[in-house]
């Protein structure tokens, strides 16, 4: 690649507050249109905004986690533009006095660690949603559009990176890392499908390192994959222009995921003049040191720190630590298990294996199997009560029913036969029933042992402890006259 790439991301996430940013309406997703609205979020004449403290708190927590500097006297500003999903035709946002400035996120791409600078973090209200006539069934006149204001006023946090991402892959990794952090902080569920995470990109290329080219803004990437694809396509388009000796024009472009192309949305001269000015309905927000200190103290361990600790404290391979720290809930779950069954690698194997496979369909918070259930299960395996395949079956049952290990073993009569005396009796029978195999053994064909052990397992319906079965067969063969 002969060009240097500079990408900056503007990430919007909906915060997980119970109520909207400036009124008491619910933020729950998926309610019937316009049921989560009130005079304030509908922007009726005469209403005034009242700031949601929790939303400010979530933004502060994020700022602390991203090493940003909190602006102790920040302000809201009005961003003025006309669109039917915006009830007041201005959005209460922040302009030159955001809640936090600066900071960085550490990402790792192809084994190389890199710090990506954060420009700013601010808080704003979301807009509603337009539903166009063409999307509505049984509508005669398809020219009409409808507005659902349920989303209007939901708190949005905007995190703007510096243009320091040097490839679409770095941009992808940045977004993944940021999402992981935000989920750890429990400030957003960062669900791109439900729109609780949205991402626009600025991208420019340049043949000289350290020099910025003309940037384009890229919108409408609806998944992590599309972000990477869209950016690569834009790199390709811009490279071709420069190759041909043409210039990149500053403009906003839309990604079309079907055509895998970017299209012009609006040129620089059509860019909005948002006529920002300080929001007169809200006094400046002053954030006192006590609050910041309290939030700092309650900040959870972040994914990177936790990953490193897992390597050290539990001596896990990097792969295991990466998987286990992918979400805060999973890491918590793992640690709970290890507390009760202190063999980290064994626990890790079980969690990363069947547990994760079973988890696919469910949320960790709502599953029926508890860490102590896992610990009980592994204890039984260790004692030899359960074979590995048995344990897997039990785990599935625990997932499904929430029953305890002992109960399942009893109900299914699954106890492994580890009682030597009764096994010996059965081994004796096996030898008697298979004289040919015994003869083979006596001729020196060791293979026959395997066959006889298999026969013993069959006789016990697989419940025999495999090592024990082996030993008993060998012993009986030697004694066999």
């Amino acid at each position, binding site marked *: 690649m002969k060009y240097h790439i500079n990408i900056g991301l503007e990430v919007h996430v909906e915060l997980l507050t119970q109520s909207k940013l400036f009124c008491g309406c619910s933020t729950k997703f998926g309610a019937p249109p316009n049921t989560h609205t009130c005079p304030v979020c509908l922007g009726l004449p005469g*209403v005034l905004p009242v700031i949601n403290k929790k939303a400010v708190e979530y933004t502060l927590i994020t700022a602390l986690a991203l090493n940003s500097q909190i602006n102790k006297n920040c302000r809201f500003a009005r961003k003025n533009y006309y669109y039917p999903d915006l009830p007041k035709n201005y959005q209460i946002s922040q302009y030159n006095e955001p809640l936090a400035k600066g900071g960085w996120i550490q990402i790792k791409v192809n084994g190389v660690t890199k710090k990506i600078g954060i420009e700013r973090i601010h808080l704003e209200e979301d807009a509603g949603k337009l539903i166009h006539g063409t999307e509505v069934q049984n509508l005669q006149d398809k020219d009409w559009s409808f*507005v659902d204001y349920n989303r209007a006023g939901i708190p949005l946090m905007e995190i703007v990176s510096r243009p320091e991402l040097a490839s679409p892959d770095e941009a992808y990794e940045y977004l993944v890392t940021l999402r992981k952090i935000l989920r750890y902080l429990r400030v957003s569920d960062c669900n791109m499908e439900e729109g609780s995470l949205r991402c626009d990109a600025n991208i420019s290329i340049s043949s000289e390192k350290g020099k910025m080219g003309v940037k384009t803004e890229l919108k409408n990437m609806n998944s992590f994959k599309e972000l990477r694809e869209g950016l690569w396509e834009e790199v390709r388009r811009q490279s071709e222009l420069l190759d041909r000796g043409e210039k990149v024009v500053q403009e906003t472009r839309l990604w079309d995921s079907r055509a895998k192309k970017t299209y012009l949305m609006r040129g620089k001269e059509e860019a909005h003049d948002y006529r920002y*000015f300080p929001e007169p309905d809200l006094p400046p927000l002053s954030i006192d040191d006590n609050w910041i200190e309290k939030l700092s103290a309650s900040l959870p361990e972040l994914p990177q720190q936790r990953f490193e600790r897992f390597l050290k404290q539990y001596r896990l391979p990097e792969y295991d630590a990466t998987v286990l720290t992918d979400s805060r809930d999973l890491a918590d779950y793992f640690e709970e298990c290890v507390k009760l069954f202190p063999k980290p690698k064994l626990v890790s194997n079980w969690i990363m294996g069947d547990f994760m496979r079973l988890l696919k369909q469910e949320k960790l918070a709502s599953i029926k199997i508890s860490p102590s259930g896992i610990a009980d299960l592994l204890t039984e395996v260790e004692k030899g009560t359960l074979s590995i395949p048995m344990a897997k079956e039990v785990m599935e049952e625990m997932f499904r029913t929430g029953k305890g290990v002992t109960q399942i073993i009893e109900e299914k009569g699954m106890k492994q036969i580890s009682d030597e005396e009764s096994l010996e009796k059965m081994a004796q029978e096996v030898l008697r029933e298979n004289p040919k195999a015994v003869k083979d053994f006596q001729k020196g064909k060791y293979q026959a042992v395997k066959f006889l052990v298999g026969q013993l397992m069959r006789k016990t319906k697989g419940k025999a402890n495999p090592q024990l079965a082996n030993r008993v067969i060998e012993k009986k063969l030697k004694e066999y006259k």
Partner: protein
Amino acid sequence: MDNIYELSAHEICKLIRRKEVSVEEVITSQFNRIEKVEEKIKAFLSLYKEEALDEARQWDKKISQGKKIPPLCGVPIAIKDVICIKDKLTTCASRILQNFRPPYSATVIDKIKNAGCIIIGKTNMDEFAMGSSTENSAFQITYNPWNRETIPGGSSGGSAAAVAGREVPIALGSDTGGSIRQPAALCGVVGLKPTYGRVSRYGLVAFASSLDQIGPLTRDVTDCALLLKIISGKDKMDSTSVNYPVPDYLEYLIPDLKGVKLGLPREYFVEGIEKEVREKVMQATKVMEDLGAEIEETSLPHTEYAIATYYLIATAEASSNLARYDGVGYGYRSKEKLDMIGMYKKTRREGFGDEVKRRIMLGTYVLSKGYYENYYGKAQRVRTLIREDFEKAFKKFDALITPTSPTVAFKIGEKIDNPLQMYLSDIFTISANLAGIPGISIPCGLGRNGLPVGLQILGKPFDEKTILRIAYAYEQNTEWRKMRPEI
């Protein structure tokens, strides 16, 4: 009693408590008066006769049962049509809201209702409170009860005229640059703009958010103090309202001015002010001196920039505040079936009047890229200087005395085609809004053509009690409070 409508609110309260009149009699008397003179004044956009009488009878029932009644029980009140009352038309005298009924009430409405007031109707105003003559109403012109050829002032002209015409004893108005005080002056009544943050703005349809305040219009200072106490206080629905104790203003109403230091800012007695206005105000200061006040000339050096500053800040905020009237969710929408932009344009073209459009355009311009710093930014800095002028003056003085308006009521149509001339009628009231300080206008005599002259008293932030005290002392020692238009 057939002249109850002549009484002030505190007198009505007294009679009701003594059971000398029933609430129903009060309301009936008021509506009889309205039926007689409203045709000539045209102060109201809505009247709620049946409802008001129903409420009156309910109070009477409670009174007869010996139940406890609230402080302003049975007092009729009129509300400027810029304040939301649940399910009642709230038009802001604009076509764009001509059918708008808010699903909620302003905080002040809840407060006056809890205090026992009976809302009898909503009053005319300049569209969206933009104007100084009430001629910018989309629906009707209101006439000054003193002389039907003249305007009542504005933008709370309907409220001022209704109080002056004894259609109602007290009313609420809103004041962004003088919209309570100037019409009060021109109609010969008392009008007070509280400190910014003293009264909740929740439910007041915004014109310029950093300047708007709701306040009382009454026929005497006592009523003004009574009503102010009811509507004041921190409201959790308005983040700009301030948690500062609300005193019982009545306790401060004493009829002398011993030890009170008053300043006369020389910038308020300049060219362009009518001779009679100056004379009346100067005579008033003599009265105050006789009552024990110390009076001295002073200076507010940045006064000359107030109007320019105001018309940058107020229009900028208005351009954004009025953006919501777009025909999408409520209010007027053009009947033509157009695309989105077409609907916006046509709706706003048909829905807004000229003055509102003028201010929206001006405000949009001053916030635009490349102009913001030179206009809005600079205006904010000058605003700070104006505020500092007052802070300095208030280190020395308890209050400042000025005329409320440079002229008495002018003729209908006289300034409607000359916006700059119209803007100048607020020259003495605007600074108080920019500085956020309280101001009261009280009658101080008759000027040119026998029309009322208003005296303005400006006070320190949250020191409404002092300006009320000064106003009261002056009022009690002069005869102007008995002045009534002949209507």
